[in-house]
């Protein structure tokens, strides 16, 4: 692909992302699964436990990144398939990669935008400090991309609405919370739990956020960044394949 074509495709991806932001960010499913869900899960976990707020904030950041970024694709794509507006992208002179990149950008910005709120609250009201800015920023960026791509991949499941995608998706997302060192730090998990947690992308998000905010890290930032990069690539590739299969079936 020529450089000119690449720039053109990138602009179209941005256009698709911005359109999704305008139309879907304030929609009820986005607010419910992207904001209400992670915040309520977080509150049900921390209320009544004697946990310092500075230790709780990384959990909230990781959860909001995870749920917000991964919810946009499974909301926008089934809705657009039902309204046949998704066909506009398929018949536009751009590649499927560009279309899905645009959708990923929408999930990425949503996740980053919402997870910045707990960082700001922690810094302003509770004096939490950033100890490793690079780990925090790169961890958040890579996580938001990986989770947004994960959502896009699940959005290729056949279904007539967001509910039909988000329900089975939650059967994957919620168990991931329990093996990812969100509620129990990885170092306190049994050996088999530590092995299992290594394969969860969410583990590496919270690892990097903790490394960024309180210097605590079990696997090391480099491993976590590598794992998130691999997951992003895998989710994008599998998502594209699934969408091509859909085009062959529909």
């Amino acid at each position, binding site marked *: 692909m020529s450089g000119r074509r690449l720039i*053109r495709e990138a*602009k*179209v991806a941005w*256009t*698709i992302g911005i*359109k999704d932001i*305008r*139309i879907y960010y304030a929609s009820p499913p986005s607010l419910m699964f992207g904001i209400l869900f992670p915040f309520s899960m977080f509150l049900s976990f921390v209320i009544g436990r004697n946990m310092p707020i500075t230790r709780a904030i990384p959990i909230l950041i990781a959860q909001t990144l995870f749920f917000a970024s991964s919810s946009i694709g499974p909301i926008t794509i089934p809705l657009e398939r039902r*309204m*046949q*507006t998704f*066909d*506009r*992208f*398929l*018949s*536009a*002179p*751009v*590649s499927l990669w560009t279309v899905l990149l645009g959708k990923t950008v929408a999930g990425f910005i949503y996740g980053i935008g919402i997870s910045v709120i707990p960082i700001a609250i922690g810094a302003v009201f509770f004096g939490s400090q950033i100890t490793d800015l690079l780990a925090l920023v790169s961890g958040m960026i890579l996580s938001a991309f990986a989770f947004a791509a994960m959502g896009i991949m699940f959005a290729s499941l056949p279904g007539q609405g967001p509910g039909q995608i988000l329900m089975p998706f939650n059967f994957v997302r919620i168990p991931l919370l329990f093996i990812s060192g969100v509620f129990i730090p990885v170092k306190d998990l049994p050996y088999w739990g530590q092995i299992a947690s290594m394969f969860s992308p969410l583990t590496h998000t919270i690892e990097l956020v903790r490394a960024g905010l309180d210097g605590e890290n079990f696997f090391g930032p480099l491993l976590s960044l590598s794992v998130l990069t691999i997951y992003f690539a895998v989710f994008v590739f599998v998502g594209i394949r699934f969408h*091509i299969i859909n*085009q*062959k*079936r*529909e």
Partner: protein
Amino acid sequence: MKVEENGMMNEAVRAKNLTKFYGKLCAVDHISFEVEKGEVFGFLGPNGAGKTTTVRMLTGISIPTEGTAEIMGYDIQRQSVEAKELMGIVPDISNVYNDLSAWNNLTFTGKLYSMPKADREIRAKELLELFGLYERRDEKVETYSRGMKRRICIAMALINRSAILFLDEPTSGLDVQSVLAIRKMIRQLNENGLTIFLTTHNMEEASQMCDRVAIINRGKIVAIDSPEKLKRTIESLQSIEVAFGKATPTVSDDLKDLPNVNEVVKQGDKYRLFTDDPPMVLAKIWDYATANGLKIITLNTLGPSLGDVFVKLTGIQPDEKGIERRTGMGRGMGGRRRQN
């Protein structure tokens, strides 16, 4: 491949062995056809015949199970960007963004086609004015009527100054005024050089609008020709339409018993008598009415309509809305009135 003398391709669309399976169901079965540049090509068939599936394959939305399609010489799968740059699509439902204004719908589509800002804004204004929606450009499309949404949908398909426009049932479910406005618009666009691929199940629309028509049934093309040539293929299917002031219950059976009448079909308050000898049957109807004291209020001789061709080729009786109707001495029901 059909090539003009100067070496340029003459086909806007070229489908070869296009096939689509949904599981074990064959929705489109190895169809091949060509659409010439500048023509209005009708794709006519009953619901479920494979019309929309064909359009989806031609426009790159769906990947064919077998076969190829070319748009202006570009393979829709292998050179999809080049092919898609030249086409506009109006699907069977108006797939507009209800949460965006008409203006934003158009400019967003322009961005998908990578049109420069100034160009897409000029074009959006031009199209909104052409479609009579410029005054309401800033309103969300969700407030628009179905006909207005259809017009926006067509405008969105034209934003990139496409060379070929795919229209899938463009007038389906619209009021008469919107139907007439859209048909007029399609004619104007075609006069300006745009190739039109029109999918419809409406015989009247196909007959009025199309230079050539392909009839598709159960995934297979059963005929391709101009509407008039298709009608001529069943010229033997002549009929007489008659309505009486006050018909008795036995009229239908009595008419069947008249000499040279092959079949009688009751259509509302009229009877359609199929015959190989219309002058003879006309005389007999007159004698029958006089003998039974019946007043004839409508009497027409009819040639075959595209609807008749459709029925003959597919064996499916179309709904009455789809059969050609014309006003004359009385209201006709199907068939082409002869100019006597």
